[in-house]
C-alpha cells in the first residue's frame, strides 16, 4: 500500500499535476504516523500509511487553497471534503483524492500512555498490535484500541476518489451503541461523566485546531463582544466551551475522531459529537458530508441555542 | 510593589475630539491627588473594571497638572466601555510605561514632528513639552494631517500654536474642504513641500502604517539619517512591563524597550509590527 501511495504521489508531482501531496510519514514518537506535506519527488520517499495516522488531513486543505493538492483520504476525510466544498471553503477540481479504504485508526495517545514504559518498536500482526518495550513484548487486540467512531463507522471507504489504493473494505457499521449506553445511565451519572471529562481540559484548543470542520477564523470561544465563554477554568466555562463547540459542529462533524484522539489530556469528546450525530440521523435522517451539494444541516449557527438536549 | 495593581483615577472631563464621535478624550485626575510624572511618548494601561485593560499613549504634557489626558478610538471591549463613561466614573491607571521620546537627546536640536490621524496623542504631549522648555530646543516644526478638518484633534492647542511665533505649524487634510485655507494633500506630500532641513535636526513620525510607509522615504530624501528619525510602535499588549511576552519584536518588548524606536534600531529587527 505504501509503495502504491508513493508511486502515485511521485507521478503526480513529476507531471506537475499537483504542487503538494498531503500524506503521512512515520513520526518520532512511538505509534505516531504524522501528517506530512510532500513537495518534491525526494520527499515522496517519506510518505507512509498505517492505522496510527489519526489526523484527518482535510484540516489542512483550506490553507492550500492557492495550490493544487493531492490528499490521502479515507471515508471520513472525503466526508470532510464534502462539507468544506458545500460551505465554499475549497474547490473540488483543485483537489486530487488518493482514496484509502480504512480499517479504522488506533487511539494512539491512549495506548502509548497505557504502556507506561519506553516503547522500542511497534507492529501490527494478525489483528494484534505488538509493542516491544525495554523489558517485554506486549500484545493488545487491534479492535480493543480502535477509535470509537471507527468501531461503528458506516463509511470507511472514500465516497469519491481520483485513484483508489487497495481494496474497498466492508463497513463495520453498527450504529451508536456507545451513545445508547451513555443514554441509559441516569441523569446524575451522565452529568458526572460529563463534568469529569470537561474538567480535564486545559484549553489548549488542539481539538479545535485539528478538526477539519473547525475552520472559523473567529471562534466563538475567543470572542469578547459578546463573550460566550469567560477566560479561565471555571467549570461552567469549560463546559460551555465544549457544548457550544459540539452544537456548532452539528451537521458538520464527520465523526472522524481526530479531536478526541489528539487531546493531550485525553478528554472524551466523541460521546458528545456522536450523540448529536445519532440524533440528527434518527430524527432527521441526516448524515453529514455525504453530498457536496447539500447545504449544511444548520445553515447558520445560533448562539442562543442552549444545547440542553445534548445531556 | 505590585506592578499589576492600578492607581484609581476619576474622570474629570470628557470631550469628543472628532465630529464622527469615534474619538473621545478623557481628562483623568488621581483620586489620591498624586499626579504621576512621565516623559512624553510614554503610555498607560487604563482599566475599565469588568472589561479589562488597554494601553493608551499619554496625550497631556508632564507640566499640565490638571490631569492626564487620553484620546480613545472606539474599537472594542475596553475602548467601547470607556466611551460609555462620563465625568465622575472611576478607572484604573498603570503607568507611566515604556521609554518615551528621547527629549534629552533632542536638546539643542531642531525637532520636526510629523503626525497623521488620531496617532497625534503623544505628539501633542511632545510638542507641549518642547514649548514648555522652549529655550532648550532649536526650531520646532509640526506637520499634522487628517482625512478632513473634523478629524483633527486638539483644535484649541492647534489654534494656540498658530498664534505663537516660535513654532512652525503645517496642517493638512486629504482633499479640499470649504473654508479650509491650509495645506491640502497627504502628509508625505506636505513634508516634501515644507522640506525641513536635516541639519542638526531630529524627526518624530507617528501615524497610520500607510502614512509612515510613504513618509519615511521623503525623510530619507531630505537627508535625515536613520538614527535621527523616531517613531512610536503599536502592538497588542497586556502586561505592559515586559512579562507576558506578546509584544516582542525580536528580543525587545515594545511595552518596555519601546514604544519609541529609531529607524536605525528598527532596521535590525524583524518586521513584526
Amino acid at each position: 500500500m505504501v509503495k502504491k501511495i508513493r508511486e502515485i504521489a511521485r507521478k503526480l508531482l513529476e507531471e506537475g499535476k499537483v504542487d503538494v501531496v498531503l500524506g503521512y510519514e512515520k513520526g518520532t514518537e512511538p505509534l505516531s504516523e504524522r501528517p506530512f506535506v510532500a513537495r518534491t519527488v525526494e520527499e515522496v520517499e517519506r510518505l507512509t500509511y498505517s492505522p496510527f495516522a489519526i489526523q484527518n488531513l482535510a484540516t489542512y486543505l483550506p490553507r492550500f487553497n492557492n495550490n493544487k493538492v493531492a490528499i490521502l483520504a479515507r471515508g471520513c476525510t472525503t466526508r470532510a471534503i464534502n462539507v468544506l466544498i458545500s460551505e465554499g471553503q475549497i474547490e473540488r477540481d483543485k483537489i486530487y483524492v488518493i482514496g484509502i479504504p480504512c480499517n479504522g485508526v488506533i487511539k494512539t495517545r491512549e495506548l502509548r500512555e497505557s504502556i507506561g514504559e519506553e516503547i522500542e518498536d511497534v507492529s501490527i500482526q494478525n489483528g494484534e498490535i505488538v509493542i516491544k518495550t525495554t523489558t517485554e513484548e506486549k500484545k493488545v487486540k487491534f479492535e480493543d484500541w480502535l477509535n470509537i467512531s471507527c468501531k461503528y463507522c458506516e463509511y470507511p471507504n472514500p465516497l469519491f476518489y481520483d485513484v483508489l489504493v487497495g481494496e474497498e473494505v466492508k463497513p463495520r457499521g453498527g450504529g451508536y451503541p456507545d451513545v445508547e449506553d451513555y443514554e441509559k445511565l441516569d441523569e446524575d451519572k451522565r452529568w458526572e461523566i460529563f463534568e469529569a471529562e470537561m474538567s480535564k481540559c486545559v484549553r489548549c484548543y488542539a481539538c479545535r485546531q485539528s478538526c477539519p470542520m473547525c475552520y472559523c477564523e473567529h471562534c466563538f470561544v475567543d470572542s469578547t463582544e459578546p463573550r460566550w465563554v469567560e477566560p479561565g477554568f471555571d467549570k461552567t466555562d469549560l463546559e460551555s466551551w465544549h457544548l457550544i463547540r459540539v452544537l456548532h459542529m452539528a451537521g458538520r462533524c464527520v465523526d472522524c475522531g481526530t479531536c478526541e484522539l489528539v487531546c493531550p489530556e485525553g478528554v472524551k469528546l466523541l460521546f458528545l459529537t456522536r450523540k448529536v450525530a445519532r440524533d440528527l440521523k434518527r430524527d432527521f435522517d441526516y448524515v453529514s458530508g455525504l453530498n457536496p451539494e447539500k447545504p449544511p444541516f444548520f445553515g447558520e449557527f445560533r448562539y442562543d441555542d442552549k444545547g440542553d438536549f445534548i445531556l | 510593589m505590585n506592578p499589576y495593581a492600578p492607581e484609581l483615577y476619576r474622570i474629570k472631563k470628557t470631550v469628543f475630539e472628532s465630529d464622527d464621535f469615534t474619538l473621545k478624550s478623557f481628562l483623568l485626575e488621581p483620586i489620591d491627588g498624586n499626579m504621576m510624572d512621565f516623559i512624553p511618548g510614554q503610555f498607560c494601561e487604563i482599566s475599565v473594571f469588568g472589561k479589562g485593560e488597554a494601553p493608551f499613549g499619554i496625550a497631556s504634557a508632564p507640566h499640565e497638572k490638571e490631569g492626564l489626558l487620553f484620546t480613545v478610538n472606539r474599537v472594542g471591549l475596553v475602548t467601547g466601555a470607556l466611551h460609555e463613561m462620563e465625568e465622575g466614573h472611576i478607572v484604573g491607571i498603570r503607568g507611566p510605561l515604556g521609554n518615551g521620546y528621547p527629549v534629552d537627546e533632542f536638546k539643542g536640536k531642531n525637532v520636526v514632528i510629523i503626525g497623521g490621524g488620531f496617532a497625534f496623542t503623544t505628539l501633542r504631549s511632545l510638542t507641549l513639552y518642547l514649548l514648555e522648555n522652549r529655550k532648550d530646543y532649536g526650531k520646532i516644526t509640526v506637520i499634522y494631517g487628517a482625512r478632513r478638518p473634523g478629524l483633527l484633534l486638539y483644535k484649541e492647542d492647534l489654534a494656540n500654536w498658530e498664534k505663537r511665533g516660535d513654532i512652525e505649524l503645517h496642517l493638512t487634510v486629504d482633499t479640499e474642504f470649504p473654508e479650509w485655507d491650509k495645506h491640502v494633500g497627504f502628509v508625505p506630500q506636505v513634508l516634501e513641500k515644507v522640506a525641513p532641513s536635516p541639519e542638526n535636526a531630529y524627526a518624530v513620525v507617528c501615524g497610520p502604517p500607510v502614512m509612515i510607509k510613504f513618509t519615511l522615504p521623503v525623510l530619507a530624501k531630505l537627508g535625515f539619517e536613520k538614527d535621527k528619525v523616531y517613531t512610536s510602535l503599536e502592538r497588542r499588549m497586556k502586561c505592559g512591563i515586559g512579562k507576558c511576552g506578546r509584544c516582542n519584536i525580536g528580543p525587545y518588548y515594545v511595552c518596555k524597550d519601546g514604544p519609541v524606536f529609531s529607524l536605525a534600531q528598527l532596521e535590525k529587527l524583524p518586521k513584526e509590527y
Partner: protein
Amino acid sequence: MKRVPLSELERIYEALKSYGSVWVRKKNAYETAETPEELLSTVSKVKKPAKFIFLPEEEPLLAFVQDGKNVTFQEVIREAKGVIFGIPPCEAKAISLLDLNFLQGEGEDIYYKKRRENVLLFGLACLAPDSRCFCTTFGYGPFTESFTDIFGVVVDDVLLFEGITEKGKDLVKNLDVEDAKGEELKKLEAMKKEITERVKKLDIQGIQEKLARMMDSEIWDKISSSCLGCGACTYYCPTCYCFDIQDVERPNWGYRLRTWDSCMFTLYTLEGSGHNPRPELKYRWRNRLMHKFNYYPVLYQEFGCVGCGRCIEVCPVNIDIREILMEVKNEPIRA
C-alpha cells in the same frame, strides 16, 4: 552527602511537611503528598511540569466591587509554601529560566515571587531519561544539582542528598540522618556517568548565530506546514510563560484573571484594526523557535529550552523540535 534508607523516608517527610506543602510527582501533575510513601514516586516525567505551581494556568490578580460610578479593588495573591520533592534537573533549570523573566529587572512579578521564594526545590537525579530527553544538549544533565535547593539521588534503596543553597543546607542541617557511605558515593559516580551518557545530546553549536541570520528563510514554511496552531507545545513546556490578562465580570463585582497564552495562537498578536504582525503559522513558529534559541540567549545568555521533550510528546502532529533544530543547522544560508 547525607543518607536515608527509602524505608525510613518518614524521617525527612516530617521535616519537609513542617516547611509547608510537599508536592510529589504524579503521572499527570505534581500533587501534594499525604503520606511519606508518596515520596517514592516512580514517575520519571510528570506530564504537567512544576511551572503549574509557580505560574498556574489561571490565577486572579485582583478583585473589584462596583458601586455606581465608584470602584474599589483589592489585590488577590495566592501564596504557596512548601517543598517540591523529586523535581528533576530539567524542570529545576526551567524554573531558573522562568525566574529570569519574572524576577529580573524593575518590574518584579510579585505573584510569581510570593510562591517562588517560599517553595524549595528538592531535586532528584533523573534515573530514567526517556527517548525524548536531550537535556545534555544544554550543558547540564540528569545529575545536575545546581538549580535546586536540595539535591538527591536514589542509589539502590537509599536516598543520598545534600543541601545546595543556604535554605537547602539549613533544612538538611536539622535532619536526623547519617552521612553517606563511601561505597554509595562510588556507586553514585558510576550511575551518573552511565545515565548521563544515555541521553542523546544534540549538536546545536552556533545555532543562535545561525538563527539570527534566518529571519527571512524559507525554512519556516516547511517547519510549520503540518502545525495546527494549538497551544499544546507551549502550555506543557516548562519554560514557556506567556500569559493573558482579562476581566471576568459579575453583577457589581468581578475579578482580573491571568491565564496562560501562547505565541502559537492567532489571537496572541491580533490588533484592533485587523492587522496581525504574525499573520501566518510560519511567523508564529519562527517566533517560538527564535524566542527559545535566539532571543533568550540575547537577553540572558541562556537558551530558553531545557530539552525535556514534552512538546514532542504532546504535539497532536508530533512536530519534533530536535528535528527542527537539525534542519535549521543544516539549512544553507542564502546570501
